[in-house]
């Protein structure tokens, strides 16, 4: 395997494990680099970073919150608004490690090749957002935060392993045997929120169909394979909001048909150069 085939994968795993390590160190050794957990963190003990969806739920439940979380949620929204909303999912979220492992095993066991019996809509996540917000308003409790496998796994790593890992195992099994990318690609409302946040992001995957040999390796590995509808047909950016910017398609492509681009700017500049 060439390095170029796993470049972004390695980078991504490095980021994910690195962040988890910093969170862990923040609690265990009191390092002041990244403290808190994935719902709200303090960067260098100064900059607050907050999960915008958790904040929305808190608002829905009818609570008034301090300025720190508001600023934190704004920073996070702007950051992912620029680099691509679901970059959170593939580069930061700890559950991605679990579901990616399930997806990998699925490919190895050829489960993908056998037609699945259960079909669920990829839009469930957007329903989930509404359901969670309504439930938060009725119950007076941020409703997703009490069962979110993301924060549960995150806290298990930071504050010590406890129960709750059963939920993680359930997601692994669900993703492995039931629905391909079932949790991250269909159900998780946080992914839905980040999809919406990243609607106008400038960081996109660009497809050059002239180079494409239609090997479809990219569609095999893509956790949101519907976003790659242009493969071999049109030379455009992957503009669907569900694209997680994980770069796995770029990794597996041997024909230079896929690359990261920064909006239209780079694409146009390159065209001029080639002329």
């Amino acid at each position, binding site marked *: 395997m060439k390095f170029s085939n796993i470049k972004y994968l390695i980078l991504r795993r490095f980021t994910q494990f690195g962040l988890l390590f910093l969170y862990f160190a923040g609690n265990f050794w*009191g390092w002041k680099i990244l*403290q*808190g957990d994935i719902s709200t963190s303090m960067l260098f003990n100064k900059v607050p970073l907050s999960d915008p969806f958790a904040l929305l739920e808190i608002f829905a439940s009818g609570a008034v919150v301090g300025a720190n979380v508001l600023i934190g949620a704004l920073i996070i929204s702007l950051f992912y608004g620029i680099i691509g909303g679901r970059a959170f999912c593939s580069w930061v979220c700890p559950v991605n490690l679990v579901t990616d492992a399930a997806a990998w095993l699925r490919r190895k066991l050829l489960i993908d090749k056998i037609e699945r019996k259960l079909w669920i809509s990829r839009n469930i996540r957007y329903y989930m957002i509404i*359901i969670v917000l309504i*439930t938060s308003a009725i*119950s007076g*409790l941020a409703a997703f935060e009490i*069962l979110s496998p993301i924060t549960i796994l995150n*806290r298990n790593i930071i504050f010590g392993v406890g129960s*709750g890992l059963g939920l993680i195992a359930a997601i692994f099994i669900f993703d492995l045997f039931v629905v391909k990318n079932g949790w991250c690609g269909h159900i998780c409302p946080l992914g839905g929120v980040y999809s919406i946040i990243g609607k106008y992001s400038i960081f996109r995957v660009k497809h050059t169909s002239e180079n494409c040999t239609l090997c479809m390796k990219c569609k095999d590995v893509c956790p949101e394979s519907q976003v790659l509808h242009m493969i071999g047909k049109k030379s455009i950016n992957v503009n669907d909001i569900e694209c997680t910017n994980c770069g796995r398609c770029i990794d597996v492509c041997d024909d230079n048909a896929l690359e990261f681009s920064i909006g239209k700017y780079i694409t146009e500049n390159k065209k001029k150069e080639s002329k």
Partner: protein
Amino acid sequence: MGEKEKKKITPRRRFFTDMAHHIGLGTMGVMLLGGYATKAKSSPLTLRPPAALAENDFLKTCIKCGLCAEACVNRPQNLTRDGKKKDKFGTLKMAKASDNVTIGTPFFTPRDTPCYMCEDIPCVPACPTGALDITKVTNSKTKKLDIRQMDMGVAVVDVHSCIAFWGLQCDACYRACPLLDEAIKLQYNRNSRTGKHAFLEPVVNPDVCTGCGLCEKACVTEKPAIFVLPKDVAQGKVGDHYVKGWDKKDQQRVKDRNEKDIITHDDRSKKKPLDYLNSNQLGL
């Protein structure tokens, strides 16, 4: 008439059916999640960090980030009782699914690790959402943090399992209390069994007690005879209609009251006493 027409699937029918489909899905989701959320909320015996909002507001506001717990465990001055550096077991824990506390929220168990009432109260300023409200532990005059204003709970003594009430001399909780001779006082009573000894009974003053739980930690009995409960669980309420006749301040309430607000008649007053006697409810 008579001929049965095959019902057409009109766009209107399709629209309403689609809508019903989505509403059905949504309702099920809200009901399932709502049921779980209501269950998750009910943990009335939980002890929260200092300056926490009232339980309901706290649950709404807490974002479950754990910054308070990290500030607690990593307080630089943390020393164990023996003067060794750093007690690695912080007071505040983040609730796990098995803890019977709303998952992800901070709480403490005094028998394991009580709150040591740090002068700088590191956990409270760390809270980003205000679920730990710093104004609750800030002295309104000096504008400084005041550990006496903490109110995590109140200590309660089970007089039947407290050996001091047996007549044995034990003042472990009394000495462990950071507000010595204020939050817990020793009440002296004559021991009539021996005729020549005294009972030294610990009595908690709920107005002073902060609920830190150092007494619970110190208690010598197998299961602590003195333990901390949240204030709204442990304390009763007299109600406005009892007035202390010997207390001038309380008497003022009687004078200040608005006559219109005084209700002496309700629906029950309409009934005659005779009706009750005749109603067979007496079982005569």
